[in-house]
Each structure stands twice: as structure tokens, then as C-alpha cells.
């Protein structure tokens, strides 16, 4: 979707403001926001792609003025309601009113080290030959789905070169919507700055994205 999250090449956000000696968390609530988000992810009710899509569906004005942990919490509330764990009335009132859905798994303290150390690999057994080899010239598709995609707007309809064939990965655009993992080959595709930004592009700039095979057409 062409949501507020797709920020590459937008103007008007001002300078980057790095904070000296930035703490890991800026307050107790950020710690709990991280932990609650990961603990609910462990339910197994949604995947990382569905949660990213819930974040990018936050209305633009809210998204752009929210801190990232606020974005996480707003999206988490959406996911918890969608999957029946929490109701809108409970969120409005701030306490439990009904039991709600039961998850596949509940993350307990003893499970945390192993779960974090394992992560959630997204590569899958290869089930097709790659269409492109390193060095191939490709053009990214020009599309504007209202659904989840990981092809940023700035990189649509652009010609670049396949730099590396990276593996066979879960296709985010389908997985976000419960259409299955449908893994595809993933490629690092590199573009000249001028191909993307045109006149006035920074000299000596190249930009790469990681693109699933169905984003690409041969040139």
C-alpha cells in the first residue's frame, strides 16, 4: 500500500537528530511496549508481515507524529482485536470484560532466551529454479496495490542489475494477508542513483533493495 510508512525520497522531515548517549529505552512504557509486542507475537496468531501491514495502516497523520513504540502498540491493539484476543470495549475501558480467544502458545519467562536466540527464519526449501542470475538487467514492476508490499514507491518501474541471488524466502505480500507463504527467490537489485532520482541525483550514489522475483521483469 502507498501508506505513510513508505518514506524513501519524501521531503520535509528536517534534519536527522541523533541523541548523544541515547538510552536503550526512554521510559518504562517503552520496555513494556517491546515486551508486550514480542509476547503477543509468540501467540502464533499472526506473522511479521501481517504485523508490518497493521503498522502501515495507521492513519498517516497519526503514523507520522507517533514514536515507533507507539506505532507498535497501536498496531498490536488492531491485531489483538482482529484475532479475538481483546475487544474494543476492553481497550476503551482499560480492563478485562470477557475471556476471548485462546492462543496456540503463551510465552513464559523460561522460554524467552531460546525463543529470542532462535528467531523466525524466513527462508524455505527451494522449490523452483531462479529466473535471474547475478548480473541480469531487470525492471521492477510498476504497481500500486492497496495491500502489503515491500517494493517501495521510489523503486517501482526502475531498471537495475541483479547483484546477488539471496535465497528462497516467504513472500511478504501474500503472507501478510493469510494467502500463504508462497516462497519465491529473493534478489538484491542495485540501481544507479540517477535511475531513481533523475536530474540532480547525488553523484556516485547507488541504492539497492531486496526484491522478490515477482517484483521483477527481464529487460
Amino acid at each position, binding site marked *: 500500500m502507498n501508506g505513510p*510508512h*513508505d*518514506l*524513501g*525520497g*519524501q*521531503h520535509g*522531515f*528536517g*534534519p*536527522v*537528530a*541523533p*541523541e548523544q548517549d541515547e538510552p*536503550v*529505552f*526512554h*521510559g518504562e512504557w517503552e*520496555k*513494556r*511496549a*517491546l*515486551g*508486550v509486542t514480542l*509476547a*503477543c507475537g509468540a*501467540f502464533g496468531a499472526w506473522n511479521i508481515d501481517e504485523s*508490518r501491514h497493521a503498522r502501515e495502516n495507521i492513519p498517516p497523520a497519526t503514523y507520522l507524529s507517533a*514514536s*515507533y513504540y507507539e506505532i507498535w*502498540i497501536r498496531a498490536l*491493539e488492531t491485531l489483538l482485536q482482529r484475532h479475538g484476543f*481483546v475487544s474494543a470495549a476492553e*481497550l476503551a475501558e*482499560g*480492563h478485562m470484560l470477557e475471556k*476471548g480467544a485462546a492462543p496456540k502458545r*503463551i*510465552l*513464559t519467562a523460561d522460554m*524467552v532466551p531460546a*525463543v*529470542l*536466540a532462535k*528467531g523466525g*527464519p*524466513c*527462508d524455505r526449501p527451494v522449490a523452483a529454479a531462479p529466473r535471474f542470475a547475478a548480473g541480469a538487467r531487470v525492471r521492477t514492476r510498476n504497481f500500486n496495490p492497496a495491500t502489503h508490499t*515491500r517494493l*517501495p514507491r*521510489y523503486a517501482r518501474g526502475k531498471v537495475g542489475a541483479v547483484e546477488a541471488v*539471496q*535465497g528462497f524466502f516467504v513472500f511478504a505480500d501474500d503472507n501478510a494477508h493469510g494467502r500463504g507463504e508462497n516462497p519465491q527467490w529473493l534478489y538484491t537489485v542495485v540501481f544507479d542513483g540517477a535511475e531513481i532520482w533523475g536530474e540532480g541525483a*547525488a553523484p*556516485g*550514489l*547507488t541504492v*539497492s533493495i*531486496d*526484491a522478490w522475483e515477482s517484483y521483477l521483469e527481464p529487460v
Partner: protein
Amino acid sequence: MSHDHDHDDHHHHDNHFSPMEARVRALETILTKKGLIDPKAIDVIVETYETKVGPRNGARVVAKAWAEPDFADWLKRDATAAIASLGYTGRQGEHMRAVFNDGETHNLVVCTLCSCYPWSVLGLPPVWYKAPAYRSRAVMDPRGVLAEFGVILPEARKIRVWDSTAELRYLVVPERPTGTDGLDQDALADLVTRDSMIGTGLALVPEARP
């Protein structure tokens, strides 16, 4: 004015009455009451990223790559395995790639679409990495962004920006500073900043000896 002053205080401190604190607290309470989350699990998650998983992990990877050419080769070919050999694995580091700065090219990592970041080697991302200013400009005006970090590269240096649009996570291996021949890996790791592994900084130069 005293009223305004109270109002300001309310917004400038992460106190217990900020809207997000209340919102997250309510959510955690509901979920705990339902038996869906274990608050102690959250404590362990927080402790992990406060004390165990952070940029010192990545600094050790870089120092080893500087000191051991065989390890650097491995890191180039299979960063996931090379990094796992040091014990750094897991969430948001499942599929690692290491990209090496040299005299020709400077590498810079961004996630324009969200906040993808190599947690297993760098910990949780800083606020600026997740904020619109960096995400919007890194791909278009990297020199302008670098200048805001105090980094000015030679004009002829090429800049390669890696937008983390899928599940690969990128670690920049900065150039090894000159004058570091005699240093062991612990001392080398002290020169490797978090920002130098994102590409918004360079490795530190050791202080000149008297």
C-alpha cells in the same frame, strides 16, 4: 504561568501519567488478567536487550574480521554462519549480510519502509533510525545525512545505500583505522561504534600516543 509549567512537565517527562504509559499499562493489565502474557517474560525480554544483546556484539564481529583475514572471508561469504560462530544468533539476525567499506565505497544501511535492523549484532535500533527524517533521506541524500552525523567523505567516494526491504539484515564493516597494528581484538572492538556499523559513522581513531 504555573499552570503552563505543570502542563509542560507533563509532556517532557516519561512519568506514569503520560498517555502512552497509561495505554501500554492498561493493555498489559488486560492481557495478564486473561493469562495471555507472563509479565516475567517481558522482564526477561527487556533485560536481554538492555544487558546482553547490543552493539558490542557487532563490534566483536568487526574486530575479528579486521584481525583475521580468514574470518573476514567467511563473513563476506556467509555472514549468518560467521556471526553465529561467535554466539550471536536469533531474532532480527536470522539472515545476515556483511558489507565492507573500502577506499572506493562507503556503505549505509536504512529501512525506508519500517525499522528493520540487525538486532542480534546491534541490539535495538536508536530512535533516529526509525524516524521519518532518516528513512526518507538516506536513500536520496546520503551525504547530507552523513554530514548531520559529522561524517564528511572524500568527494570521489562512492556511496552504496542498502534498503532493508526483505528479511536480510545488514552489518557494515567499517574500514580499519590506521595506527592500529599492535592492538588486540578487545582494543580494536573499542574503536567500533554502533553508528560505524550502520554506516552513519566511521571507526574511531585510537588516541595518539605521547
